[in-house]
Each structure stands twice: as C-alpha cells, then as structure tokens.
C-alpha cells in the first residue's frame, strides 16, 4: 500500500479510530495485524519474509541472552545474520552477481552459465533487514535486553509507518514505546497531521512534479543536450530528496498520530556546509546504522590514518551497494567515500581553512550542494556508460532547454522548490516565523488548510511509488 494511494486514505483513518477505541491489551495485536495488512496488500506471500526475519532474530536474541559464553553468543549471532542477509542477497543481488560471474566465465571461455532468478524484489526488504539485524547485534553487545514478547517484537519489525522505506529504527527507541499505555492527545495527533501534510507537499508537489522531466531526460539522454541534462540533474537532486524525505515525514506523522515517535531521517541536508555534515543530515537512520555496525567494527578512526581512510571508503562503497547491486550505485558510493577522504585529509593538512563569515558559509553550502548534485548523476543514470555520457554532455553540449510538459510545470516545480528551501533556511537559521506550527491555533489551522488546498491544486496525482521502495 502506498502512502499516496486512495487505499491509504481509507486505511489510515480506520486504523486511527480503531486503535483509539480498542482496549489497551489489544492495541499492539491490532497494529501488528494492520501492519501486515498494509504490507501484504501489495504481495501477500512476501509477508512471510518479514515473519521469517522477525522470528529468526527474535529467537536468536533470546538464545544469545541465555548463553553465558561469548563464543556461543557469537555463533548464534552469525547464524541469524547469515539467515537474514542471505534472504536479502537472494532477492536483491543474486542476479547481478550471477551476471557478473557469467561474464567472467565467458571471458575465460568456460561454457557454464549460472541461471538468472529474476525474482520480484520485496518492497522494504533492505530496510527491515537492517532494522532486525541491528536489534540482534545490540542484544549480542549487551546494549539492550531481548524482547520477550514475540508480538511486540514482530510489531517492532513490521510497524507499518516505517516498514517499507524507513526510518530504520533502533530497538532502544521504538520497542519501549510498544510497552507504554496509549493516551490520545489531540495536540499530538494534530501535530502528526501537520508533519504528514508537509511530507505530502514534498512528495506530490515537488518529487512527483519533477519526475516526468527527470525520467524523460535521463531515460533518453542521447537525444538531450547538456543544458537539459543539467536541469534534469538539478531536478533529480530535489526529486530524490523530496521523495525520500517526504516519505519519511509521512511515516513520522502517521506514527505520531498513533502516539509513536520515530527518528527524524533528514535534517536539512542541502544546507550542509561540508560533505561530512551532509551525511549526518541525509538519511540519518541509515548513516548511523552504517557507522555503528560497519564503520566502527572495522576500526573507525581509532587506528592509523590509512586504515581510517580505508574504513571510511569501504563503508561508503557498502552503503552504495546497499541501494542495489549495480555499478552505478557502487560508483556513487565510492565517489562519496572519496569526498569524505578528501574532507578528512583537508582537515588534517589544512585545519585553518574553515568557513567563518556568513558569505563563506553560503559558498561552502553551495559548493557542497554542487558536489552532491554531481554524485546524483551516477545514482540516477540507468548504467555507467549513460552516466559518463551525461557528464560529458553537460560540459560540452549547450543548447535550448527541453520543456517537458511545458513551462508552467517547470515554473510550478521551481516555485515549490523555492517554498521548500525557504522553510529549510528558516529552520536552519531558527527564524521565529511559524505558520502551520504557529502557537496560535487559529493561524495554525488556517495555514494548514491553505497548505492542503495548495497540495490538491498543484500536486501531480498520477505520480508513482516512492523511489526508495526499490531499495
């Protein structure tokens, strides 16, 4: 089920009402049922995969807790990790590697072909796999106590607002909330609606409005000139941000309406003055997952400089591959790994170079945005050859802009981007201007009604799924 579907428009109020009127002891069971319904309305059989992941990690956590020897704990941990990542690998990466192996075998003139499985990727598998594996690692590390109730744990693994595209929640944040008694608070509920409305604005008015232009340009880059490809890249920079951050906000708002707090996944990433800050603000739940479960176990920065740089690079390459086994993602990850390495080296070798004045900060933010934008070309291109052709065309083929669905659509998209960036800057600078979050409830309700009306008036309702569903 998509957040931007009619189905969800019926599902969400029904869940809110039933959740409120049910006795406390049935609420978690109800939410679990609703979450599985939410997920299985797409492809019922894939509900079994979440159930499998949930059960394996839950059992593993119980057994890890029971063991006194570290070796035995580790054994159980490894088994549960292999079981989870094997499922992820089979559905997500197996075809890429079988093609790669077949190519290598072909070069070596060996007549053997690995079959292609062509399985339909279960939506959200990368997200919930990371969430449940983080849980079992945390139990192994002794950072949290295992959850004894399978029902509660299964709900943690499949909680519908964040099930298919995050935020990747940590057990210590979300699990305790399923122990709490729910009390309806009209203000909290209304705050949830406000967050959802802004998420829908980002998704429907910006991401989905930009998508046709981006798709037209990137999927047919051969017939477009550098100017159109540059505008397409600029648009994709905002499309992916608004698509993903929009989803995360809708998830956050939905959970809030039910009385749960999720992690804020995006913290004004395009206002970052450097690449390190960008990664602290972009997809925070994934960045912190990779920091805690890949980068630090590799040695983090408590090692030699070379090893530190290697750890950073490998972490980014793996995070690139997490998006999908594809050369474009690998290059994108490696590109960001190199940027972080340059950043670390610059800070070591030239620590005095830092933005001090507001003007210098603006230049730094602008420069960071440009290097991030450049990386998105590799992320969005259909293949590596296409990505390099697009880069070449941007620098060598000026010309008239492709107009897509027409100038009004472009102007409308730019206007919405302007609104978004104004809000981002306002929040960054902590300006005391509030409309939908105004303390005066009258102003708040009027602003929210205007925002909702604007969304209905300018959204692209024929947009598709969220980009991150494919990961």
């Amino acid at each position, binding site marked *: 089920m998509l957040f931007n579907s009619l189905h969800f428009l019926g599902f969400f109020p029904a869940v809110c009402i039933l959740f409120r009127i049910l006795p406390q002891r049935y609420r978690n069971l109800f939410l679990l049922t609703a979450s599985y319904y939410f997920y299985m309305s797409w492809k019922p059989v894939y509900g079994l995969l979440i159930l499998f992941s949930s059960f394996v990690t839950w059992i593993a956590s119980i057994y890890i807790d029971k063991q006194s020897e570290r070796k035995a704990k580790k054994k159980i941990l490894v088994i549960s990790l292999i079981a989870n990542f094997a499922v992820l690998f089979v559905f997500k990466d197996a075809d890429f590697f079988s093609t790669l192996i077949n190519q290598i075998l072909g070069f070596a003139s060996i007549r053997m072909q690995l079959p292609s499985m062509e399985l339909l990727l279960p939506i959200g598998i990368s997200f919930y796999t990371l969430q449940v594996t983080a849980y079992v690692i945390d139990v192994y590390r002794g950072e949290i106590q295992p959850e004894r109730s399978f029902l509660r744990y299964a709900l943690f693994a499949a909680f519908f607002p964040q099930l298919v595209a995050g935020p990747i929640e940590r057990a210590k944040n979300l699990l305790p909330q399923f122990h709490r008694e729910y009390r309806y608070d*009209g203000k909290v509920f209304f705050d949830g609606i406000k967050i959802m409305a802004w998420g829908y604005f980002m998704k429907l008015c910006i991401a989905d409005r930009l998508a046709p232009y981006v798709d037209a340009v990137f999927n047919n880059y051969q017939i477009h000139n550098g100017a159109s490809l540059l505008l397409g890249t600029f648009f994709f920079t905002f499309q992916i941000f608004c698509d993903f951050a929009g989803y995360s906000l809708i998830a956050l708002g939905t959970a809030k309406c039910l009385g749960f707090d999720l992690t804020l996944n995006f913290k004004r990433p395009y206002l970052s003055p450097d690449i390190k800050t960008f990664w602290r603000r972009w997809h925070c739940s994934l960045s912190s997952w990779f920091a805690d479960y890949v980068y630090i176990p590799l040695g983090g920065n408590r090692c030699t400089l070379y090893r530190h740089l290697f750890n950073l690079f490998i972490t980014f390459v793996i995070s690139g591959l997490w998006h999908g086994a594809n050369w474009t993602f690998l290059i994108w990850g490696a590109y960001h790994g190199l940027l972080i390495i340059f950043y670390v080296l610059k800070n070591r070798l030239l620590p005095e170079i830092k933005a001090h004045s507001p003007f210098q900060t603006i230049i730094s933010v602008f420069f960071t945005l440009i290097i991030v934008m450049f990386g998105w070309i590799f992320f969005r291109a259909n293949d590596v050859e296409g990505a390099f052709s697009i880069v070449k065309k941007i620098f060598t083929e000026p010309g008239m802009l492709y107009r897509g669905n027409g100038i*009004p659509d472009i102007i409308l998209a730019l206007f919405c981007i302007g609104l978004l960036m104004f809000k981002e800057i306002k929040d960054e600078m902590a300006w005391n201007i509030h409309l939908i979050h105004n303390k005066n409830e009258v102003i708040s309700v009027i602003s929210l009604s*205007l925002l909702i009306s604007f969304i209905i008036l300018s959204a692209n309702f024929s947009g598709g799924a969220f980009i991150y569903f494919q990961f």
Partner: protein
Amino acid sequence: MKNNWLKYRLFFLLAAVALIDSCFGILVDFYTAKHPLPGDYLKIEYLMKSSDEDMLIIGSSVTINAYIPQIMEDSLGLTCFNGGCNSQTLPFYQCMVERILSRYSPSYIVLSMRKDDLFDGSLGFINLLKPYYGKGYASIDYFLDKQNGRKSIFLHSNLYRYNTIGCRILLHYLQSAEKISRKGFEPHAVPKYPPTLINHYEYASAYRPTNPELEACFLKIVDLCRQSGVRLIVTSPPLYIKLPGQGNSYEFSVLENLCKAHDVPFINDSQSAFFLSRPDLFHDNSHLNYRGSEIYTNRFINELREKRAELSFK
C-alpha cells in the same frame, strides 16, 4: 471554550479546506465565464465553444504536426482547423465531436487515428477534461468517472479538477497572451539527427481483441456524424516505422473493415513508401517535421481529390 475549539480542530481544518475549495470554484467560474482556460485548453475551448470551420481535423499529437490548415484552405477552398490534442484517443474525440455537433455541423470531420486507437487498454489522457466535469457534458462525466473509478469522488473538488490549471491561469498574465496560431497546426523542428527506422516489417501481425469501449466510441462518432449530415473521413498520417505483417498490420485492417462496413472513407498513409524512404521529413518516428507536414498535407489534399466523387470536393 478553548478546549472545545482544540477538540474540534480537525473538523475546522476540513471545513476550512472545503471553504477554500468552494471559493476557488466560484473564482474560476467567474474567470472562465469571461476568458478561455489557457495552455492546452485554448484548443479544447475553441473546439467545444467557438469553432465554425467547414473542416475540422481531430486527433492526437501526430495530427497536430501533420496537417497544415492554411494549405488545405488555399487548395480546397474551405475553412479548416487542426484540432489535434496531445496524448488523446477515441473517448476524447467522441467528447469533442459531440460538443461540436451540438453547436453546428461542419461539412467534414477528419478523424486522424493511430494504429492502436481501437486496441488501447485505457481511455487515454481523458483527465485533461477534468475542468468540464459536472458542467452538463454527459460523455465527459461518463468517461472521467470510468477512468477515475473510486477516485472520481475527488472530481467534486474544484481544487482537484483545476489541479495545475490555477498556476497556468496566473502565468497567463505573466507571459505574453496565448493564442491559437496557425489554425491549430504546430510545426515540429527538423532534428539534428533524423530518426532511425523502426523495422517490424518481418514480424507477424497477430490477432488482438479490440477494446469494446473504444470501438463503441468510434461507432458513436460515425453515428453522430451521419445523423448531423457531416462527412466523416478517417485517416492515418505517415510513420517512420515499418509495421508488422509486411506493412499490413492487423490493427489497421480492423479499422479499415470497420470503416468499410459503415461507408466511411479511410485514407491510410501510415506505410507510405515515399515517407518510409525519407527520414529527413520526420521529427521522430511518429511525428513529421515541418518540411514533412508541408509535403504530407499536399499529398493528403490530392488523395482527398481522388475521392472527390464520394466527398464532393472541388
């Protein structure tokens, strides 16, 4: 008191949105009473409300770039308008024909059709007609309800029906006034690189069932024209695609048989050997460039003249 207000803020929010929606509807109705809707709607409004030409050409984007009304007027001695609209198919054509014939009877309606017009799985980009929903146009309401299914409940919202059009109306005042130039014809530039031939010539042209809804639209158009004494001509402009079945595609043979059965002349230039040998006359594989349109329009006029006995051209 304050607590009560807070308790019902969701209700007030919905009421405020409904109020804004109604006010917006009143504003747009006031505006549209005096001005046509801008952008793509200029042509639709013209076809529905003010066209008075002897010959109207109706079709999709292929049509917009294929027929030059000025050449046709000069050669045939009758007034002509190219009413092609992007991404449209038979339901849209039916709605337009109904609106036109409810006002006057042109001498000819040229219906320009694509190979798949009777076979498409959907009703096309009929949502373009959302602003006319609930305004007393039965066919438009019917097709929009059909296309939107359960979503058609939103069609009662003014904001939803005029989605993005509000922005176009505002922009209309910021840029130079739009008008329909060249009697509806929009020339395509000659591209830097001519298109590459899509060759399906050797493929078999397999049986496909027609979409009954679309076939009904076609028959309705035939029927409406007959009742109003309008001569309907079905055409298909040149493509730079060699169609399956060695050029005799199943889809066109169905259309041809349908036309024959209802005594409608069918001029099919989609596989014209001349155009298939001239990539320089195309903008892409389906659309002619302005050089191609000039040549094609003249050839089309000659084809009409060849059928003068049944069409009574001069």
